[in-house]
């Protein structure tokens, strides 16, 4: 059987000639899922865009990309466009940006059935509802994207991908922000697609997803393929040093820190009996929480349970329906800060990163050099500073968000899925910075994550948000978290 898609020796460089991809090659066959793992910023998303024939203007590509017999690098735009939605479909890395802000969720799924696949309206509607249901989104069809939680938006994008039912499916981090059952569910759906004879290419940072998908695995680093082979083989016994390091960096394998000294000092942030309803439904029923300096508390909870809402209430970005939030008095307001679940949403789209940091440094009197050393620690190349937020990879942007937040010397940091777009190896270097912010700078950090291993590895306390209430999810260290 021939490859449904073929990438041979793909080179991509930016306008200045800086290489972004250096001779990547891969192929995907129907029925065999291909999973791409790799370092953040290594070019995974670019490969997918190249396959789709939608590389951003300004980038130059060489090599060969063949999709269902069409040479995507040289084909005229109309020829490429004809394949979209019929031969190939894609789940972009940032669902928040891909969804039409003014269209209801169900319509965004149903229009694929109706307009691309030509189903009559009632059937399209029914199919779309089924897709939503499969992903646990029943009842959200009439909502607009801004009324969805991060994980729900992610699942909605996945539903749209599945609705396309094309021979080739490209999914860029389809499971980020999902809790384990939903993640596994999503992975199983993708594997099913492959088993139905589709060529499925999935980019992920989650080794568990790669395992669940099976098929072939490819590991990318600095724009080149370092390893390629059947999942079982590559995941179990990687041959390349980088692959080994990458796979060994899963949070579950991190060494746990020593037990912290029990926190003292006046609470930085205190919530008493918070209540909040959204869309007419009570979301937080009674949430109380006390955070002291130096404390890192993790909150787990299923997608849509109100974690982001809780953070917004604490930071005063949303009004409470009842209860009280108390902050440590006498502290500048910006030292209570937040890492947004969707990094692109929090960056000014028309502002280059350098400019963004520059105004920040001037606003708060932070020497710009401090950003330099921070970037080095976070593995961010200085060249990235001159790009727009849309021109760097998801993981790079997420690290810039972290850099920005930490530079303000926060006393309280609400970190909403701060590592969702990072590969395990990078996570392992970045995540400790959060702990460090708490330990050595005395900040109170409220970490939201879906990854119990990560919570377990970082947090002093782990809480669980369930049915509008916060409960302790076990005690540190090491206890089984039983989700």
């Amino acid at each position: 059987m021939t490859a449904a898609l073929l990438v041979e020796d793909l080179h991509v460089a930016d306008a200045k000639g800086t290489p972004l991809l250096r001779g990547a090659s891969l192929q995907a066959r129907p029925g065999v899922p291909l999973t791409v793992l790799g370092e953040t910023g290594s070019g995974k998303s670019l490969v997918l865009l190249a396959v789709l024939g939608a590389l951003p203007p300004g980038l130059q590509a060489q090599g060969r990309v063949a999709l269902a017999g069409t040479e995507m690098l040289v084909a005229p735009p109309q020829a490429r466009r004809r394949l979209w939605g019929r031969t190939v479909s894609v789940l972009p890395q940032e669902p928040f940006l891909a969804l039409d802000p003014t269209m209801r969720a169900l319509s965004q799924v149903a229009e694929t059935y109706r307009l691309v696949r030509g189903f009559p309206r009632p059937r399209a509607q029914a199919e779309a509802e089924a897709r939503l249901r499969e992903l646990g989104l029943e009842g959200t069809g009439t909502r607009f994207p801004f009324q969805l939680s991060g994980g729900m938006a992610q699942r909605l994008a996945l539903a749209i991908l599945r609705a396309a039912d094309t021979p080739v499916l490209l999914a860029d981090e389809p499971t980020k922000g999902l809790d384990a059952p939903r993640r596994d569910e999503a992975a199983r759906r993708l594997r099913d697609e492959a088993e139905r004879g589709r060529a499925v290419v999935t980019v992920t940072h989650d080794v568990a997803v790669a395992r669940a998908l099976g098929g072939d695995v490819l590991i990318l680093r600095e724009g080149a393929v370092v390893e390629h082979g059947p999942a079982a083989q590559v995941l179990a016994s990687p041959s390349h040093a980088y692959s080994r390091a990458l796979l060994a960096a899963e949070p579950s394998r991190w060494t746990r820190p020593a037990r912290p000294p029990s926190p003292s000092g006046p609470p930085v942030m205190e919530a008493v009996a918070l209540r909040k309803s959204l869309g007419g439904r009570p979301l937080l029923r009674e949430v109380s929480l006390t955070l002291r300096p130096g404390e890192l508390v993790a909150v787990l909870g299923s997608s849509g349970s109100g974690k982001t809402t809780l953070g917004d209430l604490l930071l005063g970005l949303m009004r409470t329906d009842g209860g009280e939030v108390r902050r440590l008095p006498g502290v500048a307001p910006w030292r209570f800060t937040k890492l947004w679940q969707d990094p692109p949403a929090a960056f000014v789209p028309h502002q280059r990163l350098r400019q963004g940091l520059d105004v920040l440094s001037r606003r708060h009197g932070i020497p710009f050099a401090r950003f330099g050393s921070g970037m080095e620690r976070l593995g961010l190349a200085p060249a990235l500073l001159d790009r727009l937020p849309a021109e760097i990879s998801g993981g790079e942007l997420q690290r810039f968000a972290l850099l920005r937040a930490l530079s303000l010397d926060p006393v309280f940091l609400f970190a909403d899925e701060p590592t969702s777009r990072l590969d395990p190896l990078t996570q392992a270097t970045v995540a400790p910075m959060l702990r460090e912010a708490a330990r050595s700078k005395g900040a109170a950090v409220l970490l939201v994550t879906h990854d119990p291993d990560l919570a377990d590895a970082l947090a002093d306390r782990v809480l669980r948000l369930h049915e509008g209430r916060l409960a302790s999810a076990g005690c540190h260290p090491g206890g089984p978290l039983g989700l």
Partner: protein
Amino acid sequence: MSGARGLGAALLLLLGGLALLGPSLLPDPALQDLRSALQPPGTTWWLGTDHLGRSVLARAAHALRFSLTLAATAVGIAVLLGTGLGLLAASLGGLADRALAALGDATLALPGLLLVMVVVAFAPGEILPLSGGVALAQWVHFFRVARAEARRVLALPHAEAARVLGFGPDYVLRRLVLPELRPILLTLVGFGLGTAVLQVAALSFVGVGVRPPTPELGSMTTELLPYLPEAPVQALVPAVLVAMLVLGFQLLSADEGQKP
């Protein structure tokens, strides 16, 4: 599209040059020769003469200076006032927002002509009261557009992020809202300039505008219109100049709309 920008800049420079230098190089625009009324363009009168036998070229140059000054002043005031209040309303919200919106409605509701007449009554035919009057009639447009756009941008997450990062409303409005507002503002400014010229023409039409013999682009067209069949060039020159002015601004803002 930077070719378009260049063209726009060139047009505006050309017009600016004509307005700046023309009056001193060309004959007195009020000089009449009734027996040479409505002469076609030729070597004596490059653009012909009007119904009173005055040089249309000389009048056009003077009119351009007058109308440019007037339109720029009027639109300048209207943009500053309208955008300023619009941003203020959007960022304050609540009662202040509603009060400002009501003020805008009230200004719109008061007949523009009445406003202009009252302002102009202080110094009939003077450029500043005229611009003031026109600005008074135009500021609401900028106000409402600025307010709507500011409300939209202020609700976006990156505006929220800027606030969390400790940036004040000043920064948010200047760096986040204004860049989004700029393309539409530029478009409106371009048309606003043309509208200002035409508004003054409409005022002359009802007898409130400039006093004779001041040449002014809008009323030049209106005056010469009855003679269009006999003297098409003369009647169209002022309109063409206004068009070039508006076009220049539109071209200048040509690729502003393309957000990166």
